[in-house]
């Protein structure tokens, strides 16, 4: 029987045999490996993509007429348009773009004004998730964009739309220009090429899509026809790695160059490693608590103000988020035009109690806080923040019952105006203050103000006026006025603006995170 154990060991070694020859080589020098959770990727068609990972890819394979570069979302830069001008045409706005010369698509065909009109009309006609940016924000219909000649495009906007907001929308993937002939060649059944562009590309960007294996990886290859400075790395692999600990292992062992979804804890652990560096990225999201302004006693301004004075904002940022957030209390996040840095609230229990007494509630009251399951921006669990709010509010005599539910279910309740206190996040749809101002202040927009039953005609008027104001100085003053008003009158407790973290291999240079939640890989080297 002595022979049995060796047989057993032999079986194990047979099982492990393939390990003798795996390729454990680090990725090639000219390839960037970016690991992230890309399970939200549905389509890479810029007229359809409205998910973080789809936008990340589309921003690198397509170009827009204008762009915000790096972290700066306040200065519009030329891209495919070398210049543009806004003119008041009486009953409408005319925005005229002059296109850059010598630009070619990755297919080799030249960029024309017709391609621009085609791409914008295509978004409107397909009417997928991002189409509202053109249809509702800019008030555009098919045919409103015209090619005046080969290099000039004219867009006619209604007077109810803001030309500034339109230009901001044009920096986003929805404003990407596709090659009309390539798309037409692959269109099927009147789908305007949607099925084909889902996993192919026809853009002018620094990269072209090589392949997309669903839930696995996306491979981008440098576009040989790119008009700008050639990208430093010839290939980018966006590898789907859903678990952040695994991402951390990969970047530490050199198998990945950038890891995108680290928790604050993991980032701290990596802080002292020799071969890895941690970089922060700004996000435009705001984590806030909405208070239903028609639900007693939250209908009283003093009660809402008492809640705002009860919360230990610094404690949330310092202890729970380990500093991975910024204290912001107004409705426009830092990084956008019109940001208002005023942050008067801090925990002041006696002040909160006085306000409650003024509201006729000296003994406090009981209410319900609805929170989503899972992690909140910044990497901490929603339920942990909720527990902290519960204990903070209890000190002022406000008894909070926490109800945790999936985000989809929470939205059901919130959208039906049936919440009391609801904790959730908001990120603007386009990098302009109007992306926050209107949803938070205009009841008729049927967005956040509506969900919290906050009807404030003055606030809505200010938001509209600010959106349409062409003069930047006046616009800024209007946003200041609006944000100050909502800070105290509104039904919101803005808790924080999160940051995100990346782990980079030591040699990786030139990685810049755009706060609209993407990065342009063309500047990255290693």
């Amino acid at each position, binding site marked *: *029987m002595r022979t049995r154990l060796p047989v057993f060991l032999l079986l194990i070694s047979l099982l492990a045999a*393939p*390990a003798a020859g795996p390729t454990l080589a680090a990725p090639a020098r000219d390839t960037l490996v970016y690991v992230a959770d890309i399970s939200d990727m549905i389509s890479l068609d810029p007229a359809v993509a409205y998910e973080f990972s789809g936008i990340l890819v589309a921003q690198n394979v397509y170009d827009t007429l204008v762009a915000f570069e790096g972290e700066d979302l306040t200065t519009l830069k030329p891209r495919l348009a070398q210049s543009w001008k806004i003119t008041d045409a009486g009953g409408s706005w005319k925005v005229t773009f002059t296109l850059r010369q010598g630009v070619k698509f990755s297919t080799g065909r030249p960029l024309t004004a017709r391609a621009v009109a085609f791409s914008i009309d295509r978004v409107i006609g397909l009417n997928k998730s991002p189409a509202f940016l053109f249809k509702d924000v800019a008030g555009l219909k098919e045919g409103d964009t015209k090619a005046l000649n080969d290099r000039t495009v004219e867009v006619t906007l209604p007077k109810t739309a803001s030309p500034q907001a339109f230009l901001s929308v044009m920096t986003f993937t929805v404003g990407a220009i596709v090659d009309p002939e390539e798309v037409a060649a692959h269109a099927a059944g009147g789908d305007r090429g949607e099925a084909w562009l889902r996993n192919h590309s026809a853009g002018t960007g620094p990269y072209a899509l090589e392949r997309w294996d*669903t839930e696995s990886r996306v491979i981008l290859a440098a576009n040989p026809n790119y008009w700008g400075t050639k990208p430093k790395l010839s290939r980018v692999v966006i*590898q789907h790695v859903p678990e952040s600990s*695994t991402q951390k*292992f990969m970047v530490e062992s050199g198998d990945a160059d950038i890891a995108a979804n680290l928790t604050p804890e993991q980032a701290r652990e990596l802080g002292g490693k020799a071969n890895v560096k941690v970089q922060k990225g700004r996000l435009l999201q705001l984590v806030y608590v909405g208070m239903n302004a028609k639900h007693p006693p939250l209908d009283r301004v003093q009660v809402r103000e008492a809640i705002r004075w009860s919360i230990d904002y610094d404690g949330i940022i310092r202890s729970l988020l380990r500093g991975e957030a910024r204290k912001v209390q107004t409705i426009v996040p830092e990084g956008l035009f019109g940001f208002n840095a005023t942050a008067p609230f801090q925990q002041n229990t006696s002040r909160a109690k006085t306000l409650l007494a003024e509201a006729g509630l000296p003994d406090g009251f009981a209410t319900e806080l609805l929170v989503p399951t899972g992690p909140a921006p910044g990497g901490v669990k929603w339920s942990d923040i909720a527990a902290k709010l519960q204990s903070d509010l209890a000190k002022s005599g406000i008894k909070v019952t926490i109800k945790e539910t999936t985000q989809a*279910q929470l939205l*059901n309740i919130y959208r039906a105006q049936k919440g009391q206190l609801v904790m959730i996040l908001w990120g603007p749809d386009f990098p302009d203050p109007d992306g926050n101002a209107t949803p938070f202040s205009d009841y008729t927009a049927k967005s956040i103000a509506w969900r919290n039953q906050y009807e404030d005609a003055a606030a809505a008027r200010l938001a509209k006026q600010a959106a349409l104001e062409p003069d930047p100085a006046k616009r800024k003053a209007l946003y200041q006025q609006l944000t100050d008003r909502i800070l105290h009158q509104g039904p919101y407790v803005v808790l924080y603006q999160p940051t995100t973290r990346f782990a980079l291999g030591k040699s990786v240079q030139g990685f810049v995170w755009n706060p609209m939640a993407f990065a342009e890989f063309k500047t990255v080297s290693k």
Partner: protein
Amino acid sequence: MARYILGRIASVSLVLLGVSVLTFFIAHVIPADPVLAALGEHARDDQIEAFRRAYGLDRPVPVQFVVYLGRLARGDLGVSIRTRRPVAEDLREFLPATVELGTAAWLVALLLGIPAGILSAVYRDRPFDHLARLGALAGASLPVFWLGLVLLGVFYYRLQWFPGPGRLDVALSPPLLRTGLLLVDALLARDGAVLRNAAAHLILPALTLGLFSTAVIARMTRSAMLDVLYQDYVRTARAKGLPRRRVIVLHALKNAMIPTLTIIGISFGSLLSGAVLTETIFAWPGLGRYATASAVSLDFPAVMGVTLVIALLYTAANLLVDLLYARIDPRVRYG
């Protein structure tokens, strides 16, 4: 025999019908809206309505079910609300990765579990038995999530013996996918580098996933062997002077395999459906993760598609086990 198999197939159809009714109605009593899950917080009312119409979600639930069954009868599993692709297409893409991983894990469980169980019974209460039982206890109780991370941390990150997550190194391009089973496709394409690399990528997740089943199979084999080893016919065989090895393998093992076979069959089904955590840790693009993501987004066409496929695999595995009984035990006859 043929009649028996046909009868079983008919009953499988009934099981599948039952499963689809159950899943469909469970999916519809959940008090949340799959459209909101798909379109998110920013969606406008008109977009939500249009989406609801496009997916037929604006019709009464019984009507939706009849439409669904009608499509199902034609082999159409519908369109996923989350990925916006036909569910059948999604399944075709994700199922092979899970089949590959599940089969590898199953082989791990068989190759480790059965010998360990036999040796444990033969050396009852000796050091090997204690060790194997301790191993089985650990295998059955270690959380998969933790085990996967530890294996990755030690064998990939520290020792670098095995490659990292995913099915293939970044440097390699997968061959033309014919079956979706990377090992098979690499063989068909005669691509040795991909074959070796894909096999190496398979080991840690297969060990992680297979350890629980290894433990169960080892325990089952041990107790079945112990039952048999002390029976009279084994004693008789030994008394006749047959070599011990022959008695164990030919006389005892064959009879001990009958209860073990049931467990082996069930474990194949559960390995295919229970790979969610392993797939998450090892970034394995399989069915488990697809099912979880679909369930979280209340994507019921996808959930139903997955449920049907898993139910089908389970019942197929059971049928196979039942047929194998007849091969092993002459007393079992069908038809």
